[in-house]
C-alpha cells in the first residue's frame, strides 16, 4: 500500500515540483506564502510567463495573497490568478504605454466587465499623463453598482471635457453619499457628472480636416452645407 501511495505521489507531485523548479527564481519568489504546494506548482508557470511578458508580477502576488488571507480554496485561487494574468495581458496592450499600476487597475476594470476599447479610449484621452485615477474611479463606480458601460461612458466624457483628477476622484465619494440618502447609484452618477460637466469648457473641436477636405472650398463658420430648411435665402 505504501508503495502504491509512493508511486501515485511521484506521478502527481513530480511534474508539479518539476514545473515549479523550472520557473525562474524571481517568479517563484514572488509566490505569496500560505499557498499549498499544489497551488504553488500550478501558479509558478503563470508567474514565470508574467515575468517574460513584462507584466506586473507583484499584482499577481497581491491577488494570490488576497485569496490566501480570505481562506479561499487553493484551486480557486489558482483560477482567479490565472484569469487575472490573462487580463493583465489585455490591459497592458490596451493601455500601452502603461505603468504597472495602470496595468493592474486596467485588469481589475476588465474583470468587472469594462471593455478593452474603453481602456484604449482612456489612454487616447490622456496619452501623456498617468491614467491611474481615471481607472481607479472607473473601477470604483462599477463596484458601486453602476453598469460598466455606463461608467465607462461617463469617465470618457469627463476626460474628453478636461475634468481634473480631483473632479474625477470626488465622484465615487459623492455618489456614496447620494446612495446613502436613497438615490440609485446610476442616477447619482448622472446628476453628479452633469454637475461636473457644467463647470467644464465647451466640447473640444472636431478633428482637423484631412488633406482632401482641406482642399475643398471653405465655408463660413456656422453655415451648413447640408439641406437645411427655414434659413435665410
Amino acid at each position, binding site marked *: 500500500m505504501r508503495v502504491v501511495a509512493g508511486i501515485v505521489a511521484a506521478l502527481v507531485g513530480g511534474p508539479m515540483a518539476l514545473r515549479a523548479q523550472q520557473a525562474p527564481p524571481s517568479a517563484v519568489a514572488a509566490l505569496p506564502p500560505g499557498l499549498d504546494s499544489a497551488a504553488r506548482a500550478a501558479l509558478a508557470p503563470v508567474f514565470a510567463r508574467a515575468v517574460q511578458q513584462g507584466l506586473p508580477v507583484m499584482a499577481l502576488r497581491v491577488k494570490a495573497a488576497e485569496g490566501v488571507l480570505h481562506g*479561499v480554496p487553493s484551486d480557486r485561487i489558482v483560477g482567479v490568478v490565472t484569469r487575472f494574468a490573462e487580463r493583465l495581458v489585455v490591459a497592458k496592450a490596451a493601455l500601452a504605454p502603461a505603468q504597472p499600476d495602470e496595468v493592474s*487597475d486596467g485588469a481589475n476594470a476588465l474583470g468587472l466587465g469594462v471593455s478593452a476599447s474603453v481602456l484604449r479610449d482612456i489612454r487616447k484621452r490622456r496619452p501623456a499623463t498617468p491614467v491611474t485615477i481615471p481607472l481607479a474611479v472607473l473601477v*470604483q463606480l462599477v463596484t458601486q453598482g453602476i453598469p460598466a458601460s455606463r461608467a465607462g461612458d461617463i469617465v470618457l466624457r469627463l476626460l474628453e471635457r478636461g475634468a481634473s483628477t480631483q473632479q474625477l476622484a470626488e465622484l465615487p465619494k459623492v455618489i456614496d453619499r447620494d446612495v446613502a440618502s436613497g438615490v440609485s447609484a446610476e442616477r447619482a452618477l448622472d446628476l453628479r457628472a452633469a454637475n461636473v460637466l457644467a463647470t467644464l469648457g465647451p466640447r473640444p473641436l472636431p478633428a482637423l480636416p484631412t488633406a482632401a477636405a482641406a482642399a475643398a472650398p471653405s465655408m463660413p463658420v456656422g453655415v451648413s452645407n447640408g439641406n437645411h430648411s427655414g434659413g435665410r435665402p
Partner: protein
Amino acid sequence: MGDREMRDVPERDPMLALRDDPVLRTVVSSLREMPPSDPEAVRRIVRAAVAAGPQRASLARPWHIAGAAVAASVLVAAGYIVGHRPNAGERDRVSTGWSTVAQPASRVAHGVAATAFRLDAPAARAVSLVGDFNSWDPAATPMTRDADGRGWSVAVTMPAGRHTYAFVVDGLVIADPDVPSVRDPDYDVAVSALIVRER
C-alpha cells in the same frame, strides 16, 4: 419726549472735558500748535469731540483694530485646522500632514502624505491593516491601540490609485465598518476601497 430730555439735561462745558480725557487734551494741544485760529472754532471742534464720546475718540482704537485682527486670525486659523482635520466637515478631505480616519468608502486621500486608519475595537487583542498595498499580509502593518483604549490606529503611505483593504481583528478579516464595503469580484468577499489621489 426726546426734546424734553434734551432740555432737562444741562449742557456740559466742553472745555471741562479736557481735564478728564487725555485724547481731547491731545487734540486741543495739536490745534493750539497750528496757526492762530478762531477760538470759537476750537470750541466747536472740542464740542464735537465730546459729543462723539470718549470711547470713540480713544487712542485705544488701534488696539481694538489689532484685537479684531488677532481674533480674526485666530478664527481663520481655527477654521483652517477644522477644515483640514479628519472627521471634521468633509471627513475624507485630507491634506498633507493630516490623516484620513474611518471615512466613507470611495474616500479620497491625497497621495504622498500618510493615510491613517482607525478602527474601534476595544475588546480586541491584536488588530492589523491589510490590503493590496501590503500584499494582504497581516503581519506587515500592525495597528496600535489608541490612548483612549478603544481605537486602533496606523498610518501608511500608499501610491496614487484605488486600494482595497480590510482589518484583521484577532485573526478575523473584516471590512471597514465605517464605510460601505464593496464586493471583490474575484473572491466574492467584502472589502473596503480607498482612492488615493496623486499630489
